[in-house]
């Protein structure tokens, strides 16, 4: 039977994939044409969503962006056999945006049925776990260390080292917690994995549990992602039914249980210790460190906390070996990064590439330049706490150290592009405002400094004692940078200072004021 793929990814749904799916089913019924519809994840070519694929003897063929109105004509043109149509995109894998990617973590996203274990296994799924079950925990961890994998949630800490700390504790009860709070604006790779290939996350967490002897895992999912929750719940149920989770994982005699916990709309709960508090049923207040969560985490027990992408990269590392993964990338940034192109770009979407690709390639070769047709003026990389980079820095490679060297950060790999209508003073003000709204309130520089920051930027924009107030913003930023307990207060100065330094004219200062002000 002909297989037709219509994504259930929430991005695709947001532009009508559900009505398109219904229209295709209805049209097929009217024509007495038997089809099997697979609700896959998204290929990540969002400007083409809803992107529908048909399986033909010559491979999968894509059509998009589809509308309900186009469906009858598509049938008429013979799209079920891959025939030409104005919305035809040709063989999916040949679309340049996709063809030029290096999809390791995202190998199956958009290809498989996200909630079918059989499909997952047919596409190299659960090979990493099977391999891990033949190895001692320390050897699993050594493989992860060899791969060079660093945390994809923002701080880029080596994943294997974290696991080793947990393994080295004496406590019997340990936990694995997946940080699926994905609060950073401009990011959606975690969501795509959870909606498009949830088993790869489940497998990664199971491997982590087996490696350190943890029997319970939690996925802390933000409440803004109800679709991800639905897919995860379906996948978890299937994994339990198939014996991939529970009392004896794949018959190994080793237990691993996993459940989803939903957050409640607080950006700070993406910070790992605030997340633990939230999981324990408390307000999301950041904890003092030490102790590290790896020593005393959830309910005071040793806990692995990793981002979705970090954990979802583990199965392929165990399957293909640490060296295989490490051979991608540059410098100390090993492997691949699923980069998210967002904001004012013609072709927003997901691009997984080895580290080393430049911002410029991403913005123009993949992103196609601005959606508005105007020149790009600034990009914010790494979420709301990431720096704004001007055009002169677009040749920076995607590399943790290269970004750190610019007083910027890669974070979770989100890139938000702005055209030349952007007002950078407004962006700086927003950064302070966001910090004020989301501050957990534990430390003064963050709680009060951010509110103060909004007022002072307002005064600069209004032209009141500009030089004095610019100095005041810089002082505030210094205090926040040095006196905050966590990175919310500690990194909000990044977007603020980068806006001020690279775009002084937007603050009513002479262009080139950067040189005088330092940094």
């Amino acid at each position: 039977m002909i297989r037709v793929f219509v994504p259930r990814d929430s991005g695709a749904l947001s532009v009508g994939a559900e009505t398109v799916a219904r229209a295709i089913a209805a049209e097929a019924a009217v024509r007495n044409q038997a089809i099997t519809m697979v609700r896959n994840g998204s290929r990540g070519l969002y400007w083409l969503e809803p992107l529908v694929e048909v399986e033909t003897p010559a491979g999968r063929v894509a059509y998009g962006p589809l509308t309900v109105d186009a469906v009858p004509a598509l049938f008429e043109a013979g799209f079920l056999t891959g025939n030409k149509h104005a919305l035809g995109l040709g063989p999916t894998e040949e679309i340049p945006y996709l063809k030029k990617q290096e999809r390791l973590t995202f190998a199956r996203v958009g290809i498989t049925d996200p909630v079918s274990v059989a499909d997952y296994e047919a596409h190299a799924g659960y090979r990493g776990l099977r391999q891990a079950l033949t190895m001692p925990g320390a050897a699993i961890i050594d493989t992860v260390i060899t791969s060079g994998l660093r945390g994809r949630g923002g701080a880029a800490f080596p994943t294997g080292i974290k696991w080793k700390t947990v393994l080295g504790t004496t406590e019997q009860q340990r936990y694995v917690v997946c940080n699926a709070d994905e609060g950073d604006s401009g990011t959606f790779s975690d969501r795509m994995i959870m909606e498009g290939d949830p088993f790869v996350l489940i497998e990664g967490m199971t491997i982590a549990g087996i490696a350190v002897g943890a029997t319970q895992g939690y996925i802390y999912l933000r409440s803004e992602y109800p679709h991800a929750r639905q897919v995860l719940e379906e996948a978890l149920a299937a994994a339990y039914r198939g014996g991939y989770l529970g009392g004896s994982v794949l018959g190994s005699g080793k237990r691993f249980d996993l459940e989803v916990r939903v957050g409640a709309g607080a950006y700070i709960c993406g910070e790992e210790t605030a997340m633990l508090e939230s999981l324990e049923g408390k307000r999301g207040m950041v904890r003092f460190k030490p102790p590290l969560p790896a020593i005393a985490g959830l309910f005071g027990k040793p806990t692995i906390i990793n981002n979705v992408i970090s954990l979802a990269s583990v199965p392929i590392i165990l399957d293909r070996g640490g060296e295989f993964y490490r051979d991608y990338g540059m410098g100390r940034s090993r492997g691949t990064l699923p980069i998210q192109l967002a904001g004012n770009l013609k072709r927003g979407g997901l691009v997984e590439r080895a580290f080393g690709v430049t911002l410029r390639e991403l913005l123009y070769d993949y992103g196609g330049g601005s959606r508005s047709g105007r020149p790009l003026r600034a990009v914010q990389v790494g979420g709301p706490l990431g720096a704004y980079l001007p055009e002169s820095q677009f040749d920076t490679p995607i590399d943790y150290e290269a970004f750190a060297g610019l007083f910027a950060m890669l974070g979770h790999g989100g890139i938000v592009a702005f055209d030349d209508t952007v007002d950078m003073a407004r962006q700086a003000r927003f950064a302070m405002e966001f910090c004020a709204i989301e501050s957990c309130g534990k430390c003064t520089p963050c709680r009060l400094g951010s509110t103060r920051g909004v007022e002072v930027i307002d005064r600069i924009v209004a032209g009141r004692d500009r030089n004095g107030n610019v100095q005041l913003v810089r002082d505030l930023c210094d205090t926040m940078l040095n006196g905050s307990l966590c990175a919310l207060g500690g990194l909000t100065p990044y977007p603020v200072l980068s806006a001020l330094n690279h775009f002084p004219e937007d603050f009513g200062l002479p262009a080139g004021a950067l040189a005088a002000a330092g940094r």
Partner: protein
Amino acid sequence: MPTDSPPVISDAVARAIEAHRERPGALLPILHQIQDSLGYVPPSSVPGIAEALNLSRAEVHGVISFYHDFRETPAGRHVVKICRAESCQAVGAEQLVEHACRTLGVEFHGTTVDGAITLEPVYCLGNCALSPALQVGDAVYGRMTPKGFDRLAADLRKGR
């Protein structure tokens, strides 16, 4: 359970407590279930939750007020959450917000006079490749325009 709350409320609260009280970290799951069934977390539910989980009322209330999701008063029939984070800003979220506020006659956190729509801000829906984005219940909308917003608001008012 407090005896002064209407029976539907106390039933929903009791069910939520029973469903989750034995789980570690039960408070958020309980609050979510209450809000899912009633649309808000009534202050009258606090003493019962506190007692069941062996917490003080202040602790329970502290948690409810900490998280943006939990409401202590009922919302309109539909809650429309407009993303005001950076990716959406880059393609017109601010204009969309202004348009929504003007045409609905409310500010953020406000409810239209007919009780149909409550407007809330949200900071990223993970739909940044299709900004501007908004969310109504579980449904996400991408590439939203002022015109599209008017159509959506009209549909919501008709109860669709």
